[in-house]
């Protein structure tokens, strides 16, 4: 890809990469940094990057960058437990939605990492299971299973909250 192509393609995908980074890192500033890092790396290697499969490359690379950052945190530099993770971003929502959004955010944050990222890629980014499997390095069946399990757990908790306000 030349400079113009990489800029154009990256602009198209940067928000999806950023949202994926937020879902993994639970920190919008760090996710923005990770996205910028990703762009710099892609820019440096742009001459060797082909347009085919660029979307997968972006998503796999942002995942790797985020996992590296999570490892760095776990080595004790800036550990943020999931329970203390950031509140959901302030999207354009009314107060009821905001409340529900906060609940769902908390429930999703409590899911295992793999389930959380599969749920994000499927529901928020609308990616096909096959594509998600490619990104997370798994099989389509395993991804479907993880997605189903994640949705099931969130559903159970949501129903409890909606019925009993637990």
């Amino acid at each position, binding site marked *: 890809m030349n400079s113009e192509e990489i800029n154009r393609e990256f602009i198209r995908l*940067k928000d999806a990469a950023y949202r994926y980074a937020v879902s993994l890192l639970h920190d919008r500033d760090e996710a923005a940094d990770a996205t910028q890092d990703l762009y710099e790396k892609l*820019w440096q290697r742009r001459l*060797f990057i082909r347009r085919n499969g660029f979307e997968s490359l972006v998503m796999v690379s942002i995942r790797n960058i985020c996992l590296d950052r999570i490892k760095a945190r776990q080595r004790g530099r800036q550990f943020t437990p999931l329970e203390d993770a950031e509140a959901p*971003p302030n999207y354009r929502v009314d107060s009821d939605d905001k409340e529900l959004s906060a609940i769902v*955010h908390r429930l999703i944050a409590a899911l295992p990492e793999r389930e959380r990222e599969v749920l994000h890629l499927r529901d928020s980014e609308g990616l096909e299971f096959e594509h998600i499997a490619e990104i997370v390095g798994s099989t389509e069946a395993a991804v479907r299973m993880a997605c189903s399990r994640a949705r099931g757990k969130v559903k159970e908790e949501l129903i409890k909250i909606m019925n009993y306000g637990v």
Partner: protein
Amino acid sequence: MEYKELTKRYFDGELSSAEEQTLREGLMAAADEDLTADERAAKTLLRYASLQSDASVRIKLHDSSERRRSRITDAILSLGSLNFARVAMTTALGVLLIGVMIHFTRPTVYGYHNGRPITSYDEAQLLAQDIFNNLAHEGFAEEHNLQDLFTLD
């Protein structure tokens, strides 16, 4: 409710993207009171997902027009979006081909005469003949001398 089956399959992770879109639109349009607990949970999850997909980030991009140097390399390597493996394979094949060509087109050296390589078979034969003739003459002379030396009479 008509979305009952779709909701069940949604939670089982069995819906296609198109079916999920149908479910999303249907549940969003429906009033909460008309939905079952599962459907309301699905609606909540789907709404959360759609709100999340609005988030965006600002990235500082490199301005390609300011980087004149990169344009040259861009132009060279963007020809057909060559990837590294393909370039490396083509180069290796080229080097191999050149090696084979050199090997088969190189003249045969039959020997050296006064430091000059002899590549003509006929010339080599003539020179070899000369050398053996000379040796033969020198050999005869020595043989005569030896005969003189060991003759006691």
